[in-house]
């Protein structure tokens, strides 16, 4: 396994006017689990292809363990890859498919048998080991693709490109936790591309949020949730995302709907636009405490209810846990420690609490 460095890395496709990937400087540590998260077109797949060697960057260098691999092929870089759609050999059995990448590397027969048996167990495919891959469902084929990415222990890194997108929800839970267990056991350097925040947040130690070809924030799931550095991150992470409310600033207070929220510092008022960020999870509903909320919709999704409403014309979402009563004409209060202040979309202060 290896650490990965991206030095002044940028990429522009030959005929395109804009950069698909804007200049970045990154060091990802050996054995880390990283997720590249963002909407389609944000550059995350371009970045993954540069790391795997499928694409040569137009600017900058890629280093594995301080060795420049920018001009090396995928094979020379010695990495394993798992793609969105299954890559399996239909005429081989499940076990043969899993053994294939190992045979290619000339690994001893008994070692191959052991690793294939491990993979079969992890993927819950023991009873299908000798079936031809062609008879499997799309789900099971994708499991084999995952298994083939994971059987090799000598790789520098394992790269995943939306590996669970075509998988049924109940299986996603199983495969996600298996991946997590494998990472805890073998400490592979893993890079996982997805547009699905739950997959990214549960998989990675560090999530790299991308937007329009740039990295907008790198952080632990908790950092992304509690202190999004950009309003995009606030909105993108969370279901529903963070409420971003137009506000004013008065010294070290943010002012929204006539109410003051104390900040942890005095803010320079020269920005053209101030916004207050508050997560739906950090809004409390009551029968008479705080700001009156005009409710526009209630969405009961089982484990919680999403309350949609407005305060002085500003749309707001709040979460109420399953089983907690929602008042008829609710008032809302913000958990002021969890308030963030944004100046022209970038976070400049957070709530101090009362």
């Amino acid at each position: 396994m290896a650490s990965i460095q991206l030095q002044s890395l940028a990429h522009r496709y030959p005929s395109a006017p804009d950069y698909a990937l804007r200049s970045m400087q990154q060091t990802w540590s050996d054995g880390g689990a990283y997720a590249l998260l963002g909407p389609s077109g944000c550059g995350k797949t371009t970045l993954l292809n540069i790391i795997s060697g499928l694409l040569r960057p137009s600017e900058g260098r890629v280093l594995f363990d301080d060795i420049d691999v920018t001009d090396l092929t995928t094979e020379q870089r010695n990495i394993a890859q798992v793609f969105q759609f299954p890559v399996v050999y239909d005429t081989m059995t499940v076990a043969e498919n899993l053994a294939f990448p190992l045979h290619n590397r000339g690994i001893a027969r008994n070692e191959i048998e052991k690793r294939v048996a491990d993979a079969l167990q992890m993927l819950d495919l023991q009873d299908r080991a000798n079936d031809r891959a062609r008879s499997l469902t799309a789900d099971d084929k994708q499991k084999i693709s995952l298994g083939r990415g994971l059987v090799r222990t000598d790789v520098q890194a394992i790269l995943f490109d939306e590996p669970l997108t075509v998988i049924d929800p109940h299986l996603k839970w199983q495969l996600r936790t298996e991946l997590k267990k494998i990472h805890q056991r073998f400490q592979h350097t893993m890079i996982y591309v997805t547009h699905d925040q739950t997959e990214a947040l549960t998989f990675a130690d560090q999530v790299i949020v991308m937007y329009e070809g740039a990295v907008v924030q790198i952080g632990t799931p908790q950092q992304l949730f509690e202190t999004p550095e950009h309003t995009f991150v606030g909105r993108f992470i969370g279901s529903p995302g963070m409420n971003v409310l137009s506000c004013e600033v008065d010294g070290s207070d943010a002012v929204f709907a006539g109410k003051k929220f104390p900040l942890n510092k005095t803010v320079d008022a020269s920005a053209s636009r101030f916004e207050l960020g508050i997560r739906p999870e950090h809004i409390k509903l009551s029968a008479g405490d705080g700001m009156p909320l005009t409710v526009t919709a209630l969405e009961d999704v089982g484990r919680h209810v999403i309350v949609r409403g407005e305060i002085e014309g500003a749309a707001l979402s709040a979460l109420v846990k399953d089983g907690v009563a929602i008042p008829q004409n609710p008032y809302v209060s913000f958990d002021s420690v969890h308030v963030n202040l944004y100046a022209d979309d970038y976070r400049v202060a957070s709530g101090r609490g009362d």
Partner: protein
Amino acid sequence: MLELRNISRHQGGEIFLDDVSLSMERGELNILLGRTLAGKTSLMRIMAGLDKSNSGELLFDGVSVLGMPVQKRNVAMVYQQFINYPSLTVFENIASPLRVARVGQNQIDMQVAEVAELLQLTQMLDRMPDTLSGGQQQRVALARALVKKADLVLLDEPLANLDYKLREELRAELPALFAAMGAVLVYATTEPTEALVLGGNTVCLHEGRVEQFGPTLSLYRTPNSLRSAKTFSDPPLNSVEVECVAGQFIYAKSRQLLGIKIEKIPDGRYILAVRPHHLSRKREASDEIEIEGNVSVTELTGSETFVHFSMEDNSWVALLHDVQDFAVASKVKFYLKPQHLLLFDSNDALVEWQPEINN
């Protein structure tokens, strides 16, 4: 109204649909919820007239349509892979079914404008599909299905290929859109969360059979079978085999007591099930049931924690509304309110019961 009576379809010894009876009203959204190969697409293809059933009856507004070819029925279908004509503008893409039906230009202008407004495509009518985002392209495909004012609209996992956030936006928009249409709407999905957000009615499908059909939220809250409960749970439903001996419950494997007593329930084997968000780290009342297990892995999302643990050799998961890390293989305890226990008999049918606590 669309009525299916005892519809079955099998081919080469394989059963795709098994005695399906359903009745769906106009203006209501009907969700087909089930895993891959549960029969969702098979059912839609029969509704559309693309496939024939081996037995059963299919009626639309009281008239049998079973032998009627798809061209003669006023049906629209949207697939997972959005399909648009690449050489036509967004306007012409949406207008295409009206052109085929030889509708006049004035009428076309009006109908396209109306549906484009509804789907927020008004600004994009002159553009080509490949200049749009995936979400916009799928909205064009939706608009084309909606513009011809079909009596039956079939949507087969229409959001599956879209980005997570886009899906979230469209899910929020769709119910109002569907309500305005007055067609019989059928929507297939593998995702319980999607069904809950969309509301309407839900059909729980499993191996070609209807497990349960009714208002979405009531299906979620009171599943009539273990299958239905499992199909409609994300994160997955937790379950454990238990035995009832003289009103006392014991775990089938370890023979340990559960600490609940239920009167008027025959002795025998049962399955106890509980949804992940009903497990709590804090005991809030003395009648709560203690659940103990060994942690296998913890997933943190930044705001929530999924604790996966083994309980009597079953894989269980608890959803906590805060961030807590647990060491692998450590022992962990959760508490459960008796009213959140789901009990199923040996035929997997829901058992109605009243807990009586045994301290």
